[in-house]
């Protein structure tokens, strides 16, 4: 087990293009960290630099406090699961899993036993049964049992299904006492159903082994469900590192806000106005300061604090998550006061059973259209349509094409500076608290898993 520290890591290719730019990240012992971002954001490069398959242009990589920049991959004692599994096709499943052990054995001294034995002995021993002492056969069988591969041990990888191959790749990683696991989009080649299953298996396995893990993905569901902390990257630069909850509730900028969450956050252009009495459809609204944001879907009253941060910006970008909206008829009176009611026409509706998506289209001006297009390009998404997605209760009987009263929770509104993308309403304190809670949660889960394994 080990902590991994990245200090100002830079990766520049020969053409001078920085694939990874000045990334600093502390990964604690036993932590599960996700690197997420659109394709080409440098997340895989970063992972390959940690494992030693790419050179680090500048900056420092430390594993357990020791500088590892120059160490060969074999000396870093990390295990990696590749996107396409990278199984050895000429070897059976058994030999594939045993491969790292045989290599370690063929090294005259037992460098794994010697150099890392100290850190291995303790906590990991419990999961792989005093692994240091076990023979190759014991350890392979134990790993195979853990991954339900026992009956496939004699087969060749070519005869296995995608999920089984994935498990073999995992087996090769867990069979040795690696200091950390690195995953490079391990589930992207599986179909959706299997992906969900393997996701939960990976999560449980990580907790049982309590091993530091770094996981690269572009799938935000994986990022949100697996990670203790998630590092969001854009064009090689770290945007925000935080627990999934903090990312979702206190995103640091437009990019993170738009990237995390599905359906993604709605962005609307708005200008700050002092409220004229009775503007908009606002039902009572909680604005003591009486400021409103005038947006294409109507005037939205906001609190005095939010108005204060918004002051001085000519154009603002407001962010509203789809679930901030609700059919006004279905909102409790008690809750209604926290938001405002406005009238809009839904262009169409998608009923999913547990909820439904209502779409409101709006006509942005040229500047806003360009902003939205830039944002879409950054997020590697298709064109961001100038529309608002609302998640409504499945019971709602609203119909598209008719003026409908919708309620929006204005207390949770995010306000962004469209020039810098900065989230003006971010509460850093509350965010840090969320991440602190996640860290405590992790400690507890590892303890619980340890207790379960006896």
């Amino acid at each position, binding site marked *: 087990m080990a902590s991994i520290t990245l200090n100002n890591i830079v990766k520049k290719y020969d053409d001078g293009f920085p694939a990874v730019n000045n990334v600093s990240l502390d990964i604690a012992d036993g932590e599960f960290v996700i690197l997420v971002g659109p394709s080409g954001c440098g997340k895989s490069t970063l992972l390959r630099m940690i*494992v*030693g*398959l790419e050179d680090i242009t500048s900056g420092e990589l430390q594993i357990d406090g020791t500088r590892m920049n120059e160490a*060969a*991959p*074999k000396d870093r*004692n*990390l*295990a*990696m699961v*590749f996107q*396409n*599994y*990278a*199984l*050895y*096709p*000429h070897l059976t499943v058994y030999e594939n899993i045993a*491969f*790292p052990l045989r*290599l*370690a054995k*063929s*090294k005259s001294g037992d460098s*794994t036993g010697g150099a890392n034995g100290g850190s291995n002995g303790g906590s990991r021993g419990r999961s792989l049964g005093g692994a240091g002492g076990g023979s190759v056969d014991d350890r392979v069988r134990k790993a195979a049992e853990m991954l339900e591969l026992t009956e496939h041990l004699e087969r*060749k*990888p*070519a*005869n*296995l299904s*995608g999920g089984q*191959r994935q498990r073999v790749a995992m087996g*090769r990683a867990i069979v*040795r006492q690696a200091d950390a696991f690195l995953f490079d989009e391990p589930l992207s*080649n599986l179909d959706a159903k299997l992906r969900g299953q393997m996701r939960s298996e990976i999560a449980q396995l990580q907790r049982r082994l309590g091993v530091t893990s770094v996981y690269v993905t572009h799938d935000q569901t994986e990022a949100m469900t697996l990670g203790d902390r998630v590092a969001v990257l854009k064009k090689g630069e770290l945007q925000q590192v935080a627990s999934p909850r903090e990312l979702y509730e206190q995103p640091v900028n437009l990019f993170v806000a738009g990237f995390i969450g599905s359906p993604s956050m709605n962005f609307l252009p708005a200008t700050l106005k002092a409220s004229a009495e009775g503007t908009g459809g606002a039902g009572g609204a909680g604005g003591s300061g009486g400021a409103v944001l005038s947006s294409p879907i109507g005037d939205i009253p906001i609190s005095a604090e939010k108005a204060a941060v918004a002051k001085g910006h000519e154009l603002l970008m407001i962010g509203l998550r789809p679930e901030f909206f609700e059919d006004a008829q279905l909102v409790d009176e008690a809750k209604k006061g926290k938001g405002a009611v406005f009238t809009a026409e839904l262009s169409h509706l998608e009923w999913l059973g547990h909820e439904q998506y209502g779409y409101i289209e709006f006509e942005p001006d040229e500047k806003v259209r360009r902003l939205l297009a830039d944002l879409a390009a950054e997020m590697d998404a298709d064109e961001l349509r100038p529309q608002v997605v609302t998640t409504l209760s499945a019971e709602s009987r609203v119909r598209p094409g008719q003026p409908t009263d919708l309620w929006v929770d204005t207390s949770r509104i995010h306000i962004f500076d469209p020039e810098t993308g900065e989230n003006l309403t971010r509460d850093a304190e509350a965010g840090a608290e969320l991440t602190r809670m996640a860290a405590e949660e992790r400690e507890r889960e590892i303890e619980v898993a340890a207790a379960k394994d006896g």
Partner: protein
Amino acid sequence: MSVEATRVPAGRAAREPDPTAEELEGQKTARRAKRNTTIGWWVLTVIVAVWCLFPVASILATSFKVPGDLSNGQFLPTTPSTVNYEEILVGDSRQLFLTALWNSIGISVIATAIAVVLATLCAYAIARLDFPGKKVVLTVSLMVSMFPVISLVTPLFNMWRTLGLYDTWPGLIIPYLSLTLPISIWTLTAFFQQIPWELEQAAQVDGATPLQAFRKAIVPLALPGVFTTAIIAFFIAWNDFVYGISLTSTEAARPVPAALAFFTGASQFESPTGAISAAAIIVTIPVVLLVMLFQKQIVAGLTSGAVKG
């Protein structure tokens, strides 16, 4: 769905009408078309097989004929005899044939070995490294293999005479390389490009040194390709006739295909057809054996399953 279907068969029929006559006709046509395709392939295969194997069968039959049978116009020998084989293996032509056989084997093996070693290095570089002129190497090697052999022979003849390479083993090995190298480079490049090189990295992460990674993860996958290439290269060298006959003058280096032309009958008026046929059969045997022995390696789809597929 199934419950509903059994409960209200009438309703089902109403909603999903039975396949119309037109649809049935369509299905029938499709099935017939498929069957026709299969039959077509079989017919084609048989034609090709007969086309290729008939000459071999004819030579085989001829090789067992006694001299008197040779021009009787029959396919099969009237009295099968091994007289021709005796003639070339223990008889008068023994010297001529066996030295030629030795020359053929030696020259082909050496040319193959050199070609495979050089082509492996070259193909590795082309498949793995990014360097300017990659395309040029491939194009040039293709052009070399396209060049008509006959146009090179005369200049080579003169050069070799001056250099003292005429009628020597190296004098044939070098031109054979010009035949075997291009095809080896092309096959090996194609093969190496399919190897999942990520395995090398996986092995390194698993604790292997770069050399170990190459030896344990890549070599087992590359070997079938190298085998295949070696066999193809060997055939090319083995089958050559033009260089063999033009660049040799004595038994010092003359390979079998060329030597066959120097066989003589028992008398001046007797054609050596029988002996030539017997020699041709003997020369064919190693080729057939090689293909049969290494068929598995040649066809082996070892790389499938390494990555998602």
